[in-house]
């Protein structure tokens, strides 16, 4: 697998009035060519901040890289100047955001917004750019693209605007597309259409996608691999099957059990008690321990390192240490594990 992006030991803090907010506290992951990596987490987990750091979109006055590197195309993105980053943004790495209302400039016809990146990054004439733009609109499923080029964002629906945003982001065939909760604000049927579109385009353009979301259903639909973030760190990372059918971190268990499944019926939903940690003063041990019924004494003292579960699957929890006691995950998680060859609870004969 060719690695197209490598994030190593990334640490980033915000210098605020109240002090230093450690938004990212040591994040490691790679992005392979052609795959979709989903980053899952809740508010405050650091998932948006991580991707904005890759794009260097955070205000330089308050956001500070404390450690680590982001390797792309043989260069460390954390060390590049803004001018050099401008050559990368929109061309090599593109980003789409959650709110299609505010992602588009309301005072510019969408045709211009589409040709803008083309003209900036590529040496083509205005007419050629227009042609490419029309093709892009057609590619994202917009009917009558020639007419719509002259229209303004407010004349489109939410789903249509998101299609335009996707078209703009893919205009220069970027190597990486970062999608930050692109379907969260959309209705379920529109969401389904947009996800189908993205998967389709990914195959056509052969781009790698980092997909941020808090919706595990969407993750199951789009992801090849999944990274679960909590409190500024990745707590578990693996293939989509490994994460959904053989999760190892109590937070992942919590997330999976707090969603009703078709079998839940009347059983009480497992709810993770409490709230995410305050990153102004992060706990020195395992950040999730305070909310976990599986907490160990060591969780209060030291942050767990990553323990390998398979070549593609690791989790940062002391529960995977050889000396740790065997614990029983929540019932819904056990039900999932029953279907996964290689898990403790696998029923179904030999692996």
């Amino acid at each position, binding site marked *: 697998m060719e690695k197209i992006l490598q994030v190593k030991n990334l640490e980033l803090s915000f210098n605020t009035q109240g002090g230093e907010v450690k938004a990212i506290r040591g994040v490691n992951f790679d992005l392979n060519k052609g795959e979709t990596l989903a980053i899952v987490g*809740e*508010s405050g987990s650091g998932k948006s901040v991580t991707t904005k750091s890759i794009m260097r979109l955070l205000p330089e006055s308050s956001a500070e890289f404390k450690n680590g590197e982001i390797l792309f195309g043989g260069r460390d993105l954390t060390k590049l100047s803004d001018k050099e980053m401008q050559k990368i943004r929109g061309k090599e790495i593109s980003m789409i955001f959650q709110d299609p209302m505010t992602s588009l400039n309301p005072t510019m016809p969408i045709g211009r917004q589409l040709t803008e990146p083309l003209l900036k990054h590529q040496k083509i004439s205005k007419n050629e750019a227009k042609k490419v733009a029309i093709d892009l609109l057609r590619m994202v499923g917009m009917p009558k693209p020639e007419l719509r080029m002259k229209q303004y964002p407010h004349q489109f629906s*939410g789903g249509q605007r998101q299609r335009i945003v996707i078209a703009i982001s893919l205009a220069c065939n970027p190597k990486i597309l970062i999608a930050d909760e692109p379907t969260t604000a959309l*209705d*379920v*049927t*529109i*969401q*389904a259409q947009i*996800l*189908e579109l993205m998967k389709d385009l990914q195959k056509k353009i052969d781009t790698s996608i980092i997909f941020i979301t*808090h*919706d*595990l*259903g*969407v*993750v*199951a*639909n789009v992801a090849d691999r999944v990274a679960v973030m909590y409190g500024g760190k990745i707590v578990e990372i693996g293939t*989509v*099957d490994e994460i*959904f*059918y053989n999760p190892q971190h109590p937070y992942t268990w*919590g*997330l*999976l059990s*707090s*969603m*009703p*499944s*078709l079998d*839940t019926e009347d059983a*009480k*939903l*497992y*709810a*993770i*008690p409490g*709230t*995410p940690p305050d990153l102004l003063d992060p706990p020195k041990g395992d950040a999730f321990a305070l909310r976990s019924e599986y907490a160990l004494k060591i969780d209060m003292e030291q942050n767990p390192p990553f323990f390998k579960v398979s070549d593609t699957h690791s989790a940062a929890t002391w529960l995977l240490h050889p000396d740790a006691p065997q614990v029983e995950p929540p019932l819904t998680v056990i039900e999932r594990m029953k*279907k996964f060859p290689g898990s403790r609870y696998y029923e179904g004969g030999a692996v």
Partner: protein
Amino acid sequence: MAEKLLEIKNLKQYFNIGKANEVRAVDDISFDIYKGETLGLVGESGCGKSTTGRSIIRLYDATDGDVFYEGENVHGKKSKQDLKKFNRKMQMIFQDPYASLNQRMKVMDIIAEGIDIHGLAKNSTERKKMVYDLLETVGLNKEHANRYPHEFSGGQRQRLGIARALAVDPDFIIADEPISALDVSIQAQVVNLLKELQQEKGLTFLFIAHDLSMVKYISDRIGVMYFGKLVELAPAEELYNNPLHPYTQSLLSAIPLPDPNYERNRIRKSYDPAIHKYTEADDVRMREISPGHFVQCSEREFESIKSASVSK
């Protein structure tokens, strides 16, 4: 046979009537809500589910139609006292945990507002006690009473909103997308709380949401809305296992579930209202296909759906 708590009959809520931008948010819907049940109301943006909730509780004056609460009409000419009576019986929980609490008021006063308006506490000691009890009921601490909303997380604020609604001891609560703005793990906290409260206090809920999995979990019956109309109404299990209206089928087929194998095999159905080919002559209304399962259809469609389900 369960008692009916609410009867909504031919409710219509139109905005900007007669003008070019007339919006028929709720367009002639009828359904009943039984005592002690949780009725889920789902649909996508613009379908009118929130407007329905707000019309029932009379935040809007209905354009037409009636809402009967225990036999009494909520709409129509009413005195201030009558309206106040309804305020004690029906309450609402809102979607936005940030905008639903007055930033300038202390939690104590926010929760006690209903108590103050209706004079439910004889003195300030009793008032305080009532607020503390309510805070405990929703899983928060007494100390929180002296704090301001901005000091709480989203999930905690939603619980404050629930405490506020409970302060007047209502029988019926409309929950208008109460968990949409919350993180997944916090949603479970709030949903569990609502279920607990329902058991303890015998509350009746109208649960408005667009997250279909959560709605199925919490509701006894579910109504599906599409552009101001109710297209299907059935017990929760029945709706999911046997959706009859093509829109419901399309909606359910679009939900992604946290199960990669299911996702790999899921095929989405799309819905086009034109397939019905309704004409002026068609009498399109809610018809009962099987006990408790209603679908909006014409006479023609009714026959075909009925025969299809019989042959199943």
